[in-house]
């Protein structure tokens, strides 16, 4: 794996080189500033496969460097791991906002570094593979018709949706949210009729549907600080990081207003309306890091249960079949 590591501290560069050597990762280039790293990126012959960026550097800091690397088309999908001695929430959030894939706090042990690099490599390979498939599918989209470049369960990147990050980055953010940090609220929105939409739409139509729901959620949360992602299966997990809490009922009602005119016209002329349901939400904070991921899973499960109840109720009443929408926007209590 070809790695570019950027750190202004000579000792830390030496230690990184040593640690990577121990992991038999020898294809490493070290830079001592953001500016020299950008220069290197304009000159290198073969692209880098992973970036390790220190955050707190004089001149261009690691967050700005991350933003600039991410803006380069060839590094749109590259894993970027941020390194910093700061366990400050602001830096963690800013790093993920700038497009970071993961975050490590110094000093870190070799095992942790090794595990994160393994994940970064695996993630990078998957993203490149997915991008290749997506490009191929786009090329023959008309012929392929409704065939998808992904399955129903595939997490998708939301495009130009405020507050959206990749699902993996969302998980990494929660893992980095230590007990020292303020509480976060985790809630999930589910498209109840996602299977029907998936079956009846083309790749780009399904993407449009997912993005439209993302936009409606973003509009509902426009005054809040949050991250959201599309986790696949019609699920949008959301992390509210301003500590203000959330009332699922109010959120659900506001979301219903913002999604009122949401509809997807298929190439066959059918109109599909996504039915949204909001789970009851989980408040988290001051607890071990891994519990945050359990909260995320619980929030998703909760929204899933609510959606199943709605689907069952529609099936018994004969509503909601074949895209006939009854306008149900429900927040169902988890009980």
């Amino acid at each position, binding site marked *: 794996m070809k790695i570019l590591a950027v750190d202004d*501290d*000579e*000792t*830390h560069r030496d230690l990184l080189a*040593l640690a990577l050597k121990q992991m038999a990762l020898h294809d490493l280039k070290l830079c001592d500033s953001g500016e020299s790293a950008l220069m290197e990126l304009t000159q290198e012959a073969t692209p880098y496969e992973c970036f390790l960026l220190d955050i707190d550097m004089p001149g261009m800091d690691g967050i700005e460097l991350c933003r600039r690397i991410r803006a380069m088309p060839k590094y749109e999908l590259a894993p970027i791991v941020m390194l*910093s*001695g700061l366990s400050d929430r602001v830096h963690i959030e800013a790093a993920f906002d700038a497009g970071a894939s993961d975050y490590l706090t*110094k*000093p870190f*042990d070799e095992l942790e570094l090794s595990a994160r690099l393994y994940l970064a490599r695996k993630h990078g390979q998957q993203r490149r593979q997915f991008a290749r498939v997506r490009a191929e599918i786009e090329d023959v989209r008309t012929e392929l018709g409704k065939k998808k470049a992904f399955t129903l369960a595939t997490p998708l990147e939301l495009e130009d949706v405020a507050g959206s990050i990749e699902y993996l980055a969302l998980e990494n953010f929660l893992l980095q949210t230590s007990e020292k940090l303020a509480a976060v609220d985790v809630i999930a929105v589910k498209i109840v009729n996602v299977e029907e939409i998936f079956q009846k739409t083309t790749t780009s139509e399904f993407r449009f549907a997912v993005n439209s729901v993302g936009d409606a959620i973003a509009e509902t949360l426009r005054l809040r600080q949050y991250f959201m992602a599309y986790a696949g299966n019609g699920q949008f997990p959301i992390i509210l990081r301003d500590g203000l809490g959330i009332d699922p009922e109010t959120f659900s009602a506001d979301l219903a207003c913002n999604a009122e005119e949401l509809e997807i016209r298929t190439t066959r002329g059918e109109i599909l309306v996504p039915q949204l349901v909001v789970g009851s939400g989980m408040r988290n904070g001051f607890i071990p890091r891994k519990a945050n991921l359990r909260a995320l899973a619980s929030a998703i499960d909760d929204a899933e249960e609510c959606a199943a109840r709605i689907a069952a109720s529609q099936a018994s009443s004969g509503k909601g079949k074949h895209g006939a929408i009854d306008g149900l926007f429900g927040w169902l209590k988890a009980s």
Partner: protein
Amino acid sequence: MSQENSRQFSAALSEEFEAVRLRYLDTMETTIIELDALLGAIGRPDVQERALEGIRFRAHKISGTAETFGYPRMGQLAHQVETAVDQRARLSASGPTKQIEALVETLLVEMEQTLDARVYAPQAARV
């Protein structure tokens, strides 16, 4: 890699780590002098903010590496200095600096004692 090659590789890495540690201790002498000068500058209103920023920057670097070489107390003290400077900046840029000065002095004592001892710390295991 054969067992013998593996042993040689590990030995080479240990040597390299020791070389990095010695370079680190060399730069620590310079850092002590710089921190001492910055501590003296805190009392001068015209350069106080720059002095505090210089102290925070050096403390940040120490907190990220000291534990790696087996100096966890030095790392913790440096982290306290960094946090204290950050807190002052958040609360009031013209606030008192007494606590910061005391913390820097404690850190300097710890660094000087480390240099005096110059004993290899076998617990160094973090990167």
